[in-house]
């Protein structure tokens, strides 16, 4: 029977691969199939681009697909730690998966470098000395949107997000920096695709601006329907709905919308220019925010490996804390809770030829840390 021999041969292969003594083993758990695979693929490609560009050949990266299921991610983490015996872990996109994996990984002495998810629970009291977030704390981009709204002089915002923890954090983050009135505050259903009801409420609310956090397909749907509704209030949101990957699917509906991001392809530094160019050459598409985060994560790792091997945990940690690498974002440093302190930009969606993309129009928050750092002590 074919199936049997297939299983047998892979089982033997699994048996043969033991733990490596020399070099560094990195375990990447990310989302590569099913809905939301685009983000994981970008992180992976950005990360592997940096590894390929470095002159180190002793870094082995084990990549696994978590299917966006927390229980699968936990299993894979167990596998990485128990069987593969990796030194450093990275890759997770979604906060709920991060919550399932990171605390137990760091508790088992592994280093975790997050290329995306930055749940608040891991930034404050739940922080860990071996956990570093290279992207942002989850609230950051929402805070920047709030700051931008305040700076622009919006006085009466209508805000909406899905009814789940990251959505609640998003609205909290916006309100933390924004000081005007709220014309309305709505939690939508997770995975909702029709926003006619919400848009009607926005129209009736007398708001002067709209803030939304609707990641993935939800944001695409909202923007298309909003553009078609005739409501022409200014919209601001975090970068997630305006990223290179999905912007093409939103189309004209996104033009002119202001969104906040810690990265854009036009940030003016040599590292970034080289990154954008080589990424495009390697994969045939413009890099996204997530790709830049994967790229930076890998470069941070490489910079620390130059100083120490993860087996020497203290030295390796100190090297990571120094963040002595060239980031695509320009200046980059870690705060006391190992989350970035960085500028967050306001971007506007434009069209370059046939391609929709973003252009930086200002800095929304300068050298921004996060609200949870004060609660963190290792």
């Amino acid at each position, binding site marked *: 029977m074919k199936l049997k021999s297939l299983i047998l041969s892979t089982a033997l292969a699994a*048996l043969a691969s033991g733990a490596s003594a020399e070099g560094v083993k990195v375990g990447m758990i990310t989302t590569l199939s099913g809905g939301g695979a685009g983000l994981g693929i970008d992180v992976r490609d950005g990360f592997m681009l940096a590894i390929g560009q470095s002159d180190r050949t002793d870094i082995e990266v084990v990549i696994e697909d978590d299917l966006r299921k*927390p229980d699968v991610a936990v*299993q894979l983490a167990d*596998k990485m730690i128990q069987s593969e015996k990796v030194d450093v872990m990275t890759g997770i996109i979604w906060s709920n998966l991060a919550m*399932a994996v990171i*605390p137990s990984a760091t508790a088992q002495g592994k280093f975790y470098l997050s290329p995306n998810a930055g749940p608040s629970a891991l930034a404050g009291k739940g922080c860990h000395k071996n956990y570093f977030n290279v992207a942002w704390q989850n609230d950051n981009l929402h805070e920047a949107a709030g700051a931008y709204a305040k700076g622009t002089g919006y006085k009466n915002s209508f805000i909406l997000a899905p009814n789940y923890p990251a959505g609640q954090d998003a609205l909290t983050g916006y309100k933390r920096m924004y000081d005007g009135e709220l014309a309305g505050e709505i939690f939508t259903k997770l995975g909702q695709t029709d926003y006619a009801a919400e848009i009607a409420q926005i129209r009736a609310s007398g708001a002067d601006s709209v803030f939304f956090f609707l990641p993935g397909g939800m944001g695409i749907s909202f923007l298309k329907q909003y553009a078609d509704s005739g409501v022409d209030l200014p919209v601001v949101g975090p970068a997630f709905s305006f990223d290179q990957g999905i912007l093409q699917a939103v189309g004209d509906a996104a033009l002119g919308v202001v969104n906040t991001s810690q990265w854009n392809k036009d940030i003016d530094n040599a590292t970034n220019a080289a990154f954008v160019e080589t990424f495009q050459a390697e994969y045939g598409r413009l890099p996204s925010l997530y790709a830049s985060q994967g790229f930076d994560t890998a470069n941070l790792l490489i910079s620390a490996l130059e100083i120490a091997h993860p087996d020497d945990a203290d030295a390796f940690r100190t090297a990571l804390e120094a963040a002595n690498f060239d980031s695509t974002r320009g200046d980059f440093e870690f705060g006391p809770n190992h989350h970035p302190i960085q500028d967050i930009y306001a971007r506007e969606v434009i069209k370059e030829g046939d391609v929709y993309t973003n252009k930086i129009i200002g800095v929304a928050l300068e050298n921004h840390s996060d609200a949870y750092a004060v609660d963190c002590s290792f």
Partner: protein
Amino acid sequence: MIRERTLNGLVLVLLLAVPLWAMFNDQPFTITLATRAVIFALAAVGLNIALGLGGLVSLGHAAFFGIGGYAMGILAHHAQTYTPVMELPFLIEGTKSMPVIWLVAMVTSGIAAFLIGILSLRTAGVYFIMITLAFGQMFYFFSISWAAYGGEDGLLIYVRNDFPGLNTLVPINFFAICFTILCLVLLLNGLLARSPFGLALNAARQAPQRVQTVGLDPQRLKLVAFVISGVITGLAGALFADLNRFVSPTMFSWQMSGEIMIFIILGGNARLCGPVVGAVVFVMLEHFLGGLSEYWHIYLGALLLLVVFFARGGLVGLIAGREVAHD
């Protein structure tokens, strides 16, 4: 053709042998994988009592799986934060003791199964499939918005719960616990199928009027089967949560219900070890196909189609042939 009883023995021996081999060869992840298969098998054995014996096609068993999971998550969460679960009208403390958690998981999922069963059994056929699905979805959406216990993020338990006299953090020990429970439940299932209750339930599935004319209530038989089924799946949920040290609303999702049902169909409906074979094969496919290609779902789909076409009665049916009537 092997006799089904021999096959059952073979399956269980293999399921025990692989992790033991893994332990001596320092492959802890293989043990974890086997534990996952055992727990899925347990959940499916639970469903099989309703589905195989009682003919109740429930597409909402994730509800019980999730309730079991959250019973573990909530109790352990309160134990690790040293807060009471509730203070009024009486004090309930959290706990890290597995047996207590199992008991709570079984009782709560039993109560839920009773309520869902009483309402759902008013319908039959496809309507039953759909109303159980509806109840499952209610729990799913509720858990997503239940902020007190993490909502969509779920609940994280830092250390696996305790079992008297065993270090549960050692993978093989936790496997042993789960495997023992699975064997006990299979034994129970075997006895149940041969008992007067099993006989009557089996007849209620095939010819409900007959059962009525001998003075037995088919609906009540089915309800009791549904509750037993929910209790077992709930217990599996608690174990699954402990395996991952994590619970989240995905345990309540309709895909979860579908997967539990697929274990049964894949292995063989109404066969004692059908769910076990199905769960083990599914976990292996998930694991090994995942390594082959990014698009491994296509292969999985194709394999499942082959099973439908060429292995009527599931894999157990393929190997052991048509079910021989019990002597």
